[in-house]
């Protein structure tokens, strides 16, 4: 579904990603873990199409199409969704209006009619329930005055409504209390399907206790230095990134 090869990315002239190779198949959930500053968020943002990130080398193909050549809106319409680490507050645009505009833009791209107003209400109510969001929230300004947890829930809620094929979750667990984390994780798990893939970017193991990944990658200094199964994440939680950092720069010196 997603094939990334030799991806190099600069931000403000500084090379952040230094050759990423990543292959994600439909149905798989991959986790990207790594210390602060390793390039996790850059990878997520580049996939979503942020222009301030300059791709200096490599390719990313989504279902065979050149993802990096697409405008952000076209990526979304093709089925790529990124849950933001820091969702933007937009007073004056209601959640309902925003979501309907997004859904209809995507439907139009796919040659479908605009969603019927009643169908939209039903769809939204079902998905909101899943995340424990009350009804007044749809009328509020987009993320306006939302707590950190509400913003993250809203990201997963949008994902649930828009039903993308490929989801990038950028630090969706950060700042969540345990109840919110469970709700968010349930929301994500409800979306897992053999046709959909996910890339979960996180600093901590916490979310991965609930959303168990098929593959875990460790990103250090712009490179994937280790890949493994869910146990790798547990190891990182237990032992920290230290042992990988020591391991990373040189090819595998023997561990004490």
């Amino acid at each position, binding site marked *: 579904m997603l094939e990334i090869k030799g991806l190099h990315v600069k931000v403000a002239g500084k090379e952040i990603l230094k050759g990423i190779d990543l292959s994600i198949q439909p149905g798989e959930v991959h986790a990207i873990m790594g210390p602060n500053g390793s390039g996790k968020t850059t990878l997520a943002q580049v996939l*979503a*199409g*942020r*222009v301030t990130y300059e791709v200096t080398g490599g390719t990313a193909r989504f279902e065979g199409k050149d993802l990096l050549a697409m*405008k*952000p*809106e076209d*990526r*979304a*319409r093709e089925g790529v*969704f*990124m849950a*933001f680490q820091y*969702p*933007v507050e*937009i*007073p*004056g*645009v*209601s959640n309902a*209006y*925003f*979501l309907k*505009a*997004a*859904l209809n*833009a*995507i439907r139009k*791209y796919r040659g479908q009619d605009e969603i019927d107003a009643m169908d939209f209400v039903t769809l939204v109510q079902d998905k909101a329930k899943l995340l424990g969001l009350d009804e007044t929230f749809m009328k509020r*300004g987009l993320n306006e005055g939302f707590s950190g947890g509400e913003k993250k829930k809203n990201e997963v809620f*949008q994902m649930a409504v*828009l039903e993308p094929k490929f989801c990038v979750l950028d630090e969706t667990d950060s700042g969540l209390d345990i109840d919110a984390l469970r709700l968010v994780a349930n929301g994500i798990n409800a979306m897992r399907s053999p046709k959909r893939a996910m890339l979960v970017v996180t600093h901590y193991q916490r979310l991965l206790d609930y959303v168990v990944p098929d593959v875990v990658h460790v990103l250090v200094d712009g490179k994937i230095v280790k890949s493994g199964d869910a146990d790798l994440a547990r190891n990182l939680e237990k032992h920290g990134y230290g042992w990988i950092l020591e391991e990373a720069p040189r090819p595998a010196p023997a561990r004490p």
Partner: protein
Amino acid sequence: MRPVTDVAVAVDAKQTYVAEFASSEKELGGPKWVRTLRQNAIARFESLGFPTQKHEEWKYTNLAPLLRAPFKPAILARPDGVVAEKLQPFTFGVLKTNQVVFVNGRYAPRLSYLRSLPEGVRIGSMAEMLRSEPRALEKHVARYASFEADSFVALNTAFFQDGAFVEIPKNTVVDEPIHLLFLSASRDLPIVAHPRNLILLGANSHATVIETYAGWAPDVTFTNAATEVVVGPAAVLEHYKVQRESERAFHFGTMTVDQERDSSVTAHSMSFGSSLSRNSVSTIFRGQGGSLTLNGIFMPRETQQHDNYTRIDHVAPSCTSVELYRGILDGRSRGVFNGNIYVRKDAQKTVARQTNKNLLLSKEAFVDSTPGLEILADDVKCNHASTIGQLDDNAVFYLRSRGIDEEAARNILTYAFVADVVNQVRVAPIRIKLDQLILSRLPKGAGLGETL
């Protein structure tokens, strides 16, 4: 340093208007007190002259384009050919209103109609009132809008012939809005009109008044309007001003509002049209317990200039004013916000909040924002804030990342910038109309459709 030529232009223009007055004084007519008033006003105008950019309150607006144009009195305009169908764009959809139309400053009875009104309510033409009941007007006209320090009010007072007269008796509620529609129409000749309006709300009365100023491109017209409003004790006024003149027109409008105790006023000023406009609102709290919401939206584009001047005078204690002005500027347009709040010595327990936010949609657009508070009382809650910015790239990206194209994303965010002001419009058809007007000024904005 302003070039000397601007001063010369101002002097020439002044002499033209003064000469015009001398030759048309007889025609302007009116009862004796009006004739005296006109003479005093033109004398004052002659000594004031037109303001130049040396005047603090006119610092950012160059009047030369207005003063160079050879405007003729509206009475010289040819029959305008304005028919009822042409008014449709300026009405408010399904909203049932009492409609009073003025064409080039003169009452147009064939385009006006009143609905069934409570007893004692009077809505009509100032000129007719001057003929039939001059005494009733004498104690009001020019008592609130002073021409001592305002050249445009002085000109209006010297030249006015007609305008709207609205009187709501005490304890009377007028449910259906009163729409005063001022049309400028002159294809061949640049003309000037000086509509003069008087709106009187008796104690404990309630009314909604809309003033629309409109015209058609490419007419070059000059509207110099003055509206005096008195809101009696515990009366409630909702006032909307929608300025949609031709984008080659000049619009100067001054509204003065006198608020008596416990009265409540909500006033919205929306500027869309004209090549150069000045929208001036001055309010004063005469009695305690009054409240005022003073909102404005201005949206110049291309080479339009919209100048906004507001003055809120807290003379009496325990009054509240909340002012919210939003500017959206595109192209090479210019905007000015000059807000002045005075809290006098005895105006304890005043609450006054003033906010002006401006959004620049292009690199060539420019806005000057001068918020101002002068406080002489010590037990008050006052603040003011002013911002100038561009659309937030992060917000644009956020919307795009959900499938919304860039242009739509920018339009949504631009609309959102004024949404808090629009949402305060309580009359739904007026709100919907404003939505349409705002969206129609954005690239492909009309496609955004329903209310956000």
